[in-house]
């Protein structure tokens, strides 16, 4: 269910993330975490995966606290930690309530992004499983020759990219065989609505953000 237009949602999330990068209001950050959490709760999107990500953040959290206490200031420590959790919550509010598909269609229809970017990205993204298999194959092929390839071995990337180049060729041929060409006009089956209400929702949120930063 789309409560707010995906493109507007994305831009809003990014603006918020950008603003809190440069402001130092701990309360604002905490507010973002709470509201974000609420949003996820309402949409029933508090999954185990989401909780895991929030839990994992404890590691850098403790790290930041220790580091700022020893070499920086405690106040900065609070800001950074709350900011970290704000980022994560913001990210979750987006990725847990929007599919790549919806985002892609919205970018194409609402932001008029060139289709080569939208569908090139989606096509590539849908090959994730093949790429992962490939890399496992490459590692095993190396084992058969008594070689271990690690993340610092150029050969591992080289082989993976060789395959990727081939996939990119095949996929672009495949897409063309299904009628796709860059810059061509396309009709749209599922329309992603962009209403005044989307703009007002976004403006409202950003306004609250400004108030929070300045006054609280």
């Amino acid at each position, binding site marked *: 269910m789309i409560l707010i237009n995906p493109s507007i949602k994305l831009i809003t*999330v990014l603006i918020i993330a950008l603003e809190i990068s440069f402001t130092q209001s701990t309360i604002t950050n905490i507010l973002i975490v709470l509201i974000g959490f609420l949003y996820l709760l309402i949409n029933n999107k508090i999954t185990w995966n989401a909780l895991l990500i929030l839990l994992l953040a404890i590691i*850098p959290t403790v790290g930041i606290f220790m580091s700022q206490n020893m070499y920086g200031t405690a106040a900065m420590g609070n800001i950074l930690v709350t900011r970290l959790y704000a*980022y994560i919550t913001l990210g*979750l509010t987006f990725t847990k309530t929007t599919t790549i598909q919806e985002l892609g269609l919205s970018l194409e229809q609402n932001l008029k992004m060139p289709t*080569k970017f939208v569908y*090139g990205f989606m096509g590539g993204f849908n090959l994730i499983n093949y790429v992962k298999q490939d890399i496992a194959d490459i590692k095993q092929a190396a084992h058969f020759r008594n070689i271990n390839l690690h993340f610092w071995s150029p050969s591992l990337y080289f082989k993976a*990219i060789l395959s*990727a180049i081939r996939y990119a060729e095949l996929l672009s041929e495949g897409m063309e065989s299904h009628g796709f060409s*860059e810059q061509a006009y396309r009709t749209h089956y599922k329309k992603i609505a962009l209403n005044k209400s989307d703009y007002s929702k976004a403006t409202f949120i950003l306004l609250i953000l400004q108030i929070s930063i300045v006054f609280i």
Partner: protein
Amino acid sequence: MFKSLNLKNIILMTLISIICGTIFWIAGFLYNIVTIALTPMGLAPLANDLLIGLWTMAGPLSGYIIKKAGSSLIAEVLGSFVEMFWGGQWGASTVISGIEQGIASELGFTILGYKIYGWVSIISTTITTTIITFIWDWFRNGYSAYSYQMLILLFITRLVSIFVFNGILTKLIANLLEKSTILK
């Protein structure tokens, strides 16, 4: 500027980001472990600077393979979206970091007019990436609160990390691809 990138390029850049993401999945664990190890000494942010070369690899790698304007930047941005949807540990900041890191490595190639891709370009991308990302972190990640000894340590670590991964490793990979003549 982005006109010359075609569909095939864009698919390839997405795939390169996925490749880096898959190979670094292990390195992601490493980040957490290194952070934990460094925490008692208060040196946890060092983990960020140690491994930053890895996170930013997709950019320069794309720059060497697709020698067109914008390929580093777009690759980093596409990569950040891949990472965000794939289970990003850093949430919304991933995309912003992606844009920032993309610009940083892109400038390394821009300075050379997108014409020089030898070992010279390694130096230029290393310098632009290190400096720009460091300035960014100064403003954004509380580096401004650190003492100057800490800052020097962080800077040098970052420089080395970027040089090793974005520079040397990336160039070695590009050399192999060149040798295989697959980049016609």
